[in-house]
């Protein structure tokens, strides 16, 4: 499989390409979010994207073919050549092998984890049954500020045609970490063009469902009951502030950094987090990586302490 041609979100369990016999890509159909593997899919949406591909195919016959780049095969990755045996390579492993190679070459950058941002990251909710139709625009988002409105039809994003959620996600995946992004759409039959102004951090998305990221996402080995509002008040904390008491059973990893049974965990790195214990564990998994150094903020015997630790 030529990864230059079939360039897609390799963590997915299902994705379709529409292309010509000469490997000119007309579109993609697929994609998901952290809620579920099928939330963004529908047969109507697939048919809509397929019809758009047929129209593109008919039009493409009149245009010269753009010569494809040299094939890129996963077998060429150094980390693949080193492995023993000939077991099958799963799609998500393409990401893992690529990351190992880039880390070994000193090329890997932390922001590379934010792959395939959701259209919602720029303020667009797309219709599941018609992937280029804007169902909703988040107020004060880049899309809102560019002038898009519910009911508009997306035409191009990042200079790529959009007929599906998969098309939009691919266009956003190829977008810069910040700066302007070209967008064109149709509003009440009128062609519109504009720019989405992307701020630092716009790509950030929940990665916890991605199999290729499992070894990057930390698991905080803490557990206990949330304090009652009265208990929080007694410690000088607001009602919604994170505060939970570590269970009598303390995981070995937590013991190593100094956590004791009965410690009250109130946050990390001095952040005033307003959430429950369960939400805190998810917060760490969504916002930090294995290897990050943090300071766990706790209360022990009425005194506040910071416990330095490396996330694993």
């Amino acid at each position, binding site marked *: *499989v030529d990864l230059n041609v*079939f360039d*897609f979100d390799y963590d*997915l*369990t*299902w*994705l*379709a*390409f*529409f*292309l*010509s*016999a000469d*490997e000119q890509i*007309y579109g993609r159909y697929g994609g998901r979010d952290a809620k579920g593997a099928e939330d963004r899919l529908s047969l109507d949406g697939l048919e809509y994207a*397929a019809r758009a*591909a*047929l*129209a593109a*195919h*008919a039009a493409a016959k009149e245009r010269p073919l753009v010569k494809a780049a040299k094939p890129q*095969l*996963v*077998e060429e990755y150094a980390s693949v050549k080193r492995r023993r045996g*000939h*077991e*099958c*390579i*799963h*799609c998500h492993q393409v990401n893992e092998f690529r990351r190992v190679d880039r880390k070994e070459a000193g090329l890997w950058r932390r922001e590379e984890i934010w792959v395939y941002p959701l259209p919602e990251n720029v303020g667009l909710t797309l219709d599941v049954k018609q992937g280029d139709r804007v169902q909703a625009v988040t107020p004060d988002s880049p899309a809102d500020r560019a002038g898009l409105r519910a009911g508009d039809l997306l035409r191009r994003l990042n200079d790529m045609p959009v007929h599906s959620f998969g098309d939009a996600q691919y266009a956003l995946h190829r977008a810069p970490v910040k700066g302007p992004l070209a967008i064109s759409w149709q509003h009440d039959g009128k062609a519109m063009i504009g720019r989405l102004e992307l701020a630092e951090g716009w790509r950030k998305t929940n990665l916890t469902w991605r199999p290729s990221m499992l070894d990057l996402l930390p698991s905080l080995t803490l557990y206990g009951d949330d304090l009652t509002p009265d208990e929080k008040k007694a410690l000088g904390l607001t009602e919604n502030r994170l505060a939970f008491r570590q269970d009598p059973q303390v995981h070995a990893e937590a013991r190593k950094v100094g956590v004791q049974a009965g410690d009250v965990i109130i946050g990390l790195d001095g952040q005033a987090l307003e959430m429950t214990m369960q939400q805190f564990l998810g917060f760490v998994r969504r916002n930090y990586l294995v290897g990050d150094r943090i300071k766990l903020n706790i209360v022990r015997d009425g005194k506040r302490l910071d416990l330095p630790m490396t996330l694993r």
Partner: protein
Amino acid sequence: MRGLLLSSLLGIGLTVLPNPAAGQPAPAKAGKTPWLTGYDEARAVARQTGKPLLVVFR
């Protein structure tokens, strides 16, 4: 290559899309689509018929 090729061949479904613009027959009923599992074969059929490809990774 073999590892990926094998897994891919097991995981890829390929078919050619009917092209109404080229006077092709109506879409096949569900379950009647002539799926192919070889990419090169599918490209050859697409080239012969002038139809685009639908390639599914699953």
